Structures are given as C-alpha cells and as structure tokens.
C-alpha cells in the first residue's frame, strides 16, 4: 500500500486522477487513515455535500495480507447526517482487493458539473473514470447484476443505490461479499450521500495479477497468524456463538436483561423477542436450505453471517444482523422474521443504513404515520416511499432525527443526529456513555461496553449503575479506534479482551508484518491520537460538550422492567477525553 489515488471530480474537462506516494499512510490504515486525511484536508465547517468535502476510502493495516479476518474497509468524510467526522466500515471483498492493488487510500474530492453519473474501474495497470448514465437510478442488486456482465465475477464492487443518488443522509455504500452480493454496507452517517454528491455510482476493483502484500518478517507473521486464528477459534464467542447464531444471539440476551429497546424506547422487554431471536433465525435458515454460518469476506475465520432464504427456498437476503432485527423488529413492534428479512433486503438494495432506517420507521410509528406492528406498512414505507424517493420517503431517508421533527415526536433516540442502536442506555449504562461521547454520534461499535456490562466478556461492570462506565467506555473507544485501523473485524475483540495471548498474537501480527516491535501502549497511543484529531475536527464543525449528551428523555423517563434512568452525569461524561 505505497500509493494514494486522488480523483478530482471538479477538474475542468472532466475528472482528473493522480497518484501520490502514501508516505505516512503506508503503515497506517482504516480509520486512522481516513480520519487523518479528512481532518487535514476537509474544512470542518464545510457543507458535507459540497465540493469541499472528500470521500476517503482506506483498507486496513493488515488488509490484503494473509492475516485472518483482515477485510474491513473504512470510508471517511464529513457526515451529512451528524455534521461531524465520520468513519464507517464494512466487510465484503473490497478491502482485500484494494490493498492488494497497492492503494493505502482513494481520495475523491470536488463535485463534477452537470448530471452525468460516473463509475471508476481500477485494476493493476490503470484507473478509468467514465460516464455511464445507464446506471442511473438502479438499486444495488440490479446494478451489480449489470456490472457483473461488464466486469466479470473476479472483482469487488462498491456502490450506491438510489438513496445515495438522491443524497439521503441515511444512504450507505454497499460492498459485495464473496458471492458478489451487495450485502455489506458502510452504513452509518450517510457516506452514500457523499458518494452520490460526487456523482459516483460504482467503484470496480480488480486485482487480477496482484498478490498478497508480503510481510517484512515472514516467520514472525506466520507464527502470529496461526496463534491468532487458534485464539479466535477457541474462544466460545468467536469460535461457537457467533458462527452458530450470528450477532442476533443477542436478542434474547438483551431482552432477558431488560435492555432491549421496544416500540421506540418505551420498554426494555419485547414480548415476542423469542420469535425473532438468533436461535429461531438459525433454525429457520437451516430448515429453508440457507446457511446459518457464512463469511462476509474470504479469510474470515468467525463467519457470523448467514444466508436467509424465503419460504420457497430462494435467496432473500444475507442473515440480518442483530441491530437490523432489532431496528426493524422490536423497535417497531414487529415479530416476523420474513418481514425483517424483506426489509433488510430493501435496505441493502436501496442502499440505506439498516439502523437509521429502522429507527426512523419506529419514530414514524410513534408519530402516527403507521401503527406499531404494521409489517406491511413498514415494508411499504421502505420499498415504495424511500425506494422511490417520494416526499415521505425523503423524510424517512433523512433519518430518525428528521422523521421525529416532521411528525412532532418528542422521544427521538439520536445523538449528534445519529440513531441509537439496539441497547437501551438506561439498562446498559456503559453503552450510553459511548453513544453520548463518541465522535461518530450514537454508535455501539465505537466502544462496545455491552461486552463488559451484559456479556461479561473482558471484565464485569454492573450495567445498571453509572459507576465505572466512563472509564470503561474510554478504554474501549481508544482500543476500538485502533482496531478499526487494522482492517480486522471488531469481533476479534471478544477473544483479545479475554485471552492475553491472543492480544499478544495481534501485536505480533502487526509487528511481524511491518517489521517493528508493537506493544499495547502503541495501540493505545494510536487510538488516542486518532480520537483526538476526530474530536478537533468536530470542534471545528461546531460541536461542544453539550453535544456529548443523550436525549433528555433518558433522564426523565424510567425504563421498565428496571425502572431506571441514565445515571451518568454530564460532568462525568465530560471526563471521557481526559488525555489531551
């Protein structure tokens, strides 16, 4: 990864490309790369859909190598949803292919004149940016079918659906999985709208003739990789639970713990949770000839995903994740797995974040647009309103915050205008700290305190009390920022939190690849450095301590069954960033 591709969409006479040396970014990756470039090159107060914003795409530090589970790709920009910095990452094949092609990053800047829609084709020998208006207003599945005929099956695609073209701030960027389905999405923060504003419909990545990136210290790297895989396989979460049931195994856990936000955060338990649980989902998938275990990219040794077939045994969508099953399920009072899977398909096809979309629909239900529990209504809203870009669809596609305003809803679960995921902060107080303080807006992955609060992985902090949550969230946010830079899937956190030898093998993997010594302190320093510059960017964009808060109702409305409010004080939240 010794080069950076820069594409200026504003250039006179059409988009211009140039290649520069990767410099400091040659040994960086993922979130560290995207956030550093965005912080350096994008004016924090610019409009996110203007020419001044940039879309930065970066594979992780270990992507394109033989390291296991290293295929996360990061996309960064100023978020049109939050107005702050954004890094959104996804699985799929893109990271491995882009890294093998030698790119540490692609930076797309400017806006083209006119209405032409572009595609970018990158292979070993050249980069071609061309107009292709025949792709206009195609959703992701038909788009990828069309592109496969043109570019074959040995490539990886990144694309936007109609939501991205329509500049909806819940729009995602889809990445294809090993079977070339557009199922893995850089979902959060509206990165698809930024790609759409630059009039780029698809990026085709072809690594024919390229090989894996070679490690500096091959022996150390190989030994570390073996130990790393062994550590992942032997931990019960990554070795058994995630492969067998996927992330949706959490539905029953959170529901039993009373932290499952139900019908727009009114209660912490859903009476029909077991119908949409990971256990039920896996059983159904297997009965219909789908798969309960599937990897989103080659080289994944956990395989938390699956294949969800319809009643007739035909592919409907990839296994909906826990967050999706919640946002379209319990959050909306919906308890039918086929409805949820259909919504997952439409989200992927139109190209919207499943969390933002599901939460927006639940808020619309609260606002009286349709009733809670209206399966058909929910599908209609996504497929026929958001998918067709109607005025109502544009309100919903504008996210939960906009939907709440449009329909006069007071209980609107957003932080920095980004929808809360599937854990109620009154019952899982640690994740509330992460929601409130993350530079990304409400994001569970930014510092997954659920592990320590509820799952009892990596320690034990009482989920119902405010004590210890700020420190927990701080440490997790720092570590996560570093992991988000490696290209490794965040689910390696379960084994590395519990097994010191697996954490050591991660350090050796990085150290062996780059021929350096890596320590835990280096990981912390990297995480802190990136968080600091993200926070500086947000300050420049107008964010202050008052934005590091949960919506007020979490302090005024008690959540059954525990009847608690969020107990971490504002002063404590302000202590999260205590290192700079």
């Amino acid at each position, binding site marked *: 990864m010794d080069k950076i591709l820069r594409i200026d969409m504003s250039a006179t006479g059409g988009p211009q490309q140039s290649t520069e040396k990767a410099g400091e970014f040659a040994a960086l990756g993922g979130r560290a790369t995207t956030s550093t470039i965005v912080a350096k090159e994008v004016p924090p107060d610019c409009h996110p859909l203007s020419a001044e914003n940039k879309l930065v795409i970066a594979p992780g530090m270990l992507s394109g190598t033989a390291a296991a589970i290293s295929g996360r790709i990061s996309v960064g920009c100023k978020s049109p949803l939050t107005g702050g910095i954004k890094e959104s990452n996804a699985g799929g094949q893109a990271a491995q292919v882009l890294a093998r092609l030698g790119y540490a990053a692609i930076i797309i800047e400017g806006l083209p004149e006119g209405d032409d829609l572009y595609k970018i084709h990158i292979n070993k020998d050249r980069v071609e940016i061309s107009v292709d208006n025949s792709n206009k207003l195609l959703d992701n599945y038909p788009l990828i079918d069309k592109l496969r005929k043109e570019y074959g099956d040995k490539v990886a695609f990144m694309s936007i659906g109609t939501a991205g073209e329509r500049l909806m701030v819940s729009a995602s960027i889809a990445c294809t999985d090993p079977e070339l389905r557009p199922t893995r999405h850089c979902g959060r923060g509206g990165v698809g709208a930024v790609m759409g504003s630059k009039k780029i419909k698809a990026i085709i990545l072809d690594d024919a003739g390229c090989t894996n990136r070679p490690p500096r210290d091959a022996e150390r790297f190989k030994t570390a990789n073996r130990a790393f895989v062994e550590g992942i396989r032997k931990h019960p*979460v990554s070795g058994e*639970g995630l492969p067998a*049931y996927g*992330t949706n195994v959490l539905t029953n856990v959170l529901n*039993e713990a009373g932290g499952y936000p139900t019908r727009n955060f009114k209660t912490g338990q859903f009476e029909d949770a077991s119908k949409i649980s990971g*256990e039920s989902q896996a059983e159904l998938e297997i009965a219909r000839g789908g798969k309960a275990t599937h990897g989103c990219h080659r080289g994944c040794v956990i395989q*938390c995903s699956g294949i969800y077939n319809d009643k007739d045994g035909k592919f409907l969508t990839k296994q909906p994740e826990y967050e999706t099953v919640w946002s379209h399920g319990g959050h909306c009072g919906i308890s039918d797995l086929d409805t949820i899977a259909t919504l997952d398909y439409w989200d992927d096809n139109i190209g919207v974040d499943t969390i933002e979309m599901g939460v927006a629909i639940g808020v619309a239900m609260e606002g009286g647009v349709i009733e809670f529990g209206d399966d058909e209504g929910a599908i209609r809203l996504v497929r026929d309103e958001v998918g067709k870009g109607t005025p109502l669809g544009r309100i919903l596609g504008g996210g939960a915050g906009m939907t709440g305003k449009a329909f006069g809803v007071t209980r609107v679960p957003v932080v920095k205008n980004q929808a809360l995921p599937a854990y109620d902060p009154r019952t899982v107080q640690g994740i509330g700290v992460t929601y409130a303080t993350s530079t990304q807006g409400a994001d569970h992955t930014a510092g997954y305190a659920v592990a320590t609060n509820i799952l009892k*992985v990596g320690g034990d902090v009482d989920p119902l009390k405010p004590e210890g949550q700020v420190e927990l969230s701080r440490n997790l946010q720092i570590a996560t920022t570093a992991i988000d830079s490696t290209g490794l899937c965040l689910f390696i956190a379960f084994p590395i939190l519990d097994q010191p030898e697996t954490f050591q093998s991660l350090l050796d993997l990085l150290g062996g690849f780059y021929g350096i010594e890596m320590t835990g302190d280096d990981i912390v320093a990297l995480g802190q450095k990136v968080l600091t510059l993200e926070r500086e960017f947000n300050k420049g964009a107008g964010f202050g301590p008052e934005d590091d808060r949960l919506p007020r109702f979490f302090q005024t409305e008690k959540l059954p069954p525990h009847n608690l409010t969020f107990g971490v004080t504002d002063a404590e939240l302000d202590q999260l960033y205590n290192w700079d």
Partner: protein
Amino acid sequence: MKVTVKLFASFQTGRFKIEIRDYPDQTLIGTVVRELNIPEGEVGILLLNAVHAKLEQPLNEGDLLAIFPLVGGG
C-alpha cells in the same frame, strides 16, 4: 417452590427452551445448572429476574432464571 428456567443458544440443544421447574426452597443457581448437566465453565451469563446473578445465589418462589453460554455480537 416453582422457578421458571429459560435456556438459550447451545444450552437448548437436547434440553428445553423454557420450563417451570420444582425445587426445594433456597436451591442455589449452581445446583440448577448442575442438575441440567451444564458444565459450570460453559456458563456465560446468568440472569435472575433480569439482573446478573452468580452460581452461589439462592432461588425463591416465582423466580425467573435465564442461563446463557458465553455469547457475543454487536
């Protein structure tokens, strides 16, 4: 006394999902786990009436006990 026991994920295999079971008063959670042939080391999360509990805690009439292996997601 009657206690509702719920099992999840791999613990359901060959056992049950939910059962109302009879135990002597003050039976410990650990005793229930052993009686169900669940190796203690495999227990990840114990929720007693929606609150995290430990193996050595006693049960009372009408309690709801949920037993999970170590699981995770995100």
